[in-house]
């Protein structure tokens, strides 16, 4: 039953993104007057079942963060469809979007720019309740404090301002804010990349504990394979705006199929179960303004053939439940 092209299955999925494109304008070319656009997300499909974690991994600049922000409609896609809890939210606006947003939240990478420096922590954590008319005043304060205790902060933290806390503590505040509205989906955009390794583990464990308690799904974005492996049920590997490979985390880490995934894995010592030969990629990641034709990865691929520069491989099923976009897998 293998060989089929990857089709997202919106039925029963919490989040389904179908063939989503997003470009950003850069300045016009000085000579031709041509409109240059960065193709940040270039036809991506994925699904997240309720309560599960999809790890999204890739190099910086591959479109991970854009995809994460599209998933909760902080950005609108150029084309494609985004479905959340079975509803099409692709073009949702105004009050409907505001209401939907109660059930999807985000934790940011930079714990310094993600908290308003002029607001007290309890107001930051409780902003969602206030905006949706769920709590205010004394009740908001008490609920914020309870939530802060839940994420491992002292209750008095609510009275202080964000600058009085360390990066790890700030990230806990950001997590408290994200779970305040009991969302069904939390996008975690590199939530531990800015933290010390010792703090990383604490925050990852907190995220896992909370997931067990609240049963929400994560779209977990990271460039760190070890982190992705620790948290994910399924993994999608992105390169230059496209998904190169996706499948269950265990299988993908045990036996990466796509040459790009294999080279990524080989760069992390002691990650694969069997010691593998180091695959060193040559060259830089190409510009997303003018991505290479054919397979996005062929300019750096050790398996590249003539065909790769001409035909863009589709993401197809190469083993049960496992999808890769490569002509030779």
């Amino acid at each position: 039953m293998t060989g089929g092209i990857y089709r997202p299955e919106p039925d029963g999925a919490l989040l389904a993104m179908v063939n989503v494109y997003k470009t950003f304008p850069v300045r016009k070319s000085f000579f031709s007057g041509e409109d240059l656009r960065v193709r940040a997300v270039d036809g991506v499909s994925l699904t997240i079942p309720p309560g599960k974690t999809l790890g999204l991994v890739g190099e910086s600049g591959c479109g991970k963060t854009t995809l994460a922000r599209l998933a909760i409609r902080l950005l609108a896609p150029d084309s494609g469809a985004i479905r959340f809890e079975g509803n099409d939210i692709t073009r949702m606006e105004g009050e409907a979007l505001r209401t939907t947003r109660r059930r999807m939240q985000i934790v940011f990478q930079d714990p310094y720019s993600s908290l308003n420096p002029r607001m007290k922590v309890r107001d930051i954590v409780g902003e969602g309740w206030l905006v949706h008319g769920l709590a205010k005043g004394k009740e908001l304060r008490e609920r914020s404090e309870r939530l802060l205790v839940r994420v491992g902060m002292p209750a008095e933290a609510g009275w202080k301002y964000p600058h009085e806390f360390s990066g790890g503590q700030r990230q806990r505040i950001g997590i408290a804010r994200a779970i305040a509205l009991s969302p069904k989906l939390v996008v975690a955009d590199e939530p531990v990349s800015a933290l010390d390794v010792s703090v990383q583990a604490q925050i990852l464990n907190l995220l896992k504990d909370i997931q067990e308690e609240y049963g929400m799904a994560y779209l977990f974005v990271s460039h760190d394979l070890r982190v992705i492996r620790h948290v994910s049920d399924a993994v999608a590997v992105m390169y230059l705006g496209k998904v190169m490979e996706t499948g269950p985390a265990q299988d993908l880490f045990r036996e990466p199929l796509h040459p790009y995934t294999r080279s990524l894995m080989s760069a992390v010592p002691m990650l694969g179960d069997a010691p593998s030969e180091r695959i060193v990629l040559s060259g830089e990641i190409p510009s997303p303004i003018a991505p290479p034709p054919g397979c996005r990865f062929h300019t750096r691929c050790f398996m590249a053939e003539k065909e790769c520069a001409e035909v863009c491989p589709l993401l197809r099923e190469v083993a049960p439940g496992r999808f890769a976009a490569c002509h030779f897998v």
Partner: protein
Amino acid sequence: MSGSRDIGRDFARRLLRNRLAAAGGLVVVFFFLVAAFPALFTSQNPDRIDVANILRPPSAAHPLGTDDLGRDVLARVVYGARVSMKVGFVAVGIATAIGLVLGLLAGFHGGRVDAVLMRFVDIMLCFPTFFLILAAIAFLSPSIVIIMAVIGLTGWMGVARLVRAETLSLKERDFVAAARAQGAGDARIIFRHILPNALAPILVAATLGVAGAILTESALSFLGIGVQPPTPSWGNILTVGKNYIEFAWWLSLFPGLAILFTVLGYNLLGEGIRDAVDPRLKGR
């Protein structure tokens, strides 16, 4: 780590450690008191004419001398502070209010709104402000209200650009995206998330703006198209003083010093606030 007043206390500490800023602040407070409670600083009536004592040098009865109508110069300088402070604050208030609204609109909405508003700013900046004020007052009768309005209406462009730039950078910050994800609307994002974080540079611009407004008012009054006699203003005292500068130096010196110290005070204070809120100078 002692609670909520920390930001303010930290700011005050950095401001006071800057000696020049503290001195500037002191001068500003002093002139503020003079303007608010003139009776504490002089017992004389600034409008009482005494033809028996014209152009008298400083003495015990008249510490800063008398003018060409025998009026007490100290009293006139003290009551003149009122005019200067009033013009300074009201004009800057008008300018800041306009600049704030237009800057927020332009920065937050971007696109066409931004383009139109910023071209308007560019056009306004093309006019030499002082001559624009002169022309405007030539059509309207010079009064303190007109002067405040005209200075305010020609001085908002800097604030608008500043607020726009702050808004542009703040609206891309993650905490604004987080507020959006929480379901916050535009109004809440502007007033709760963007404006409070843009206040520090606005405060600096406003403080420096007061100095500029006071200087402009003095210049207009000196030229005779500002505050009209007999209402005392530092500028119109100087106008009289220039006629007698060879033998009545006190008539020019003291209002001149008042202008000098006030403007210097506001400038030092403004620069001090800027240094105190600029994170790049933190911990110095």
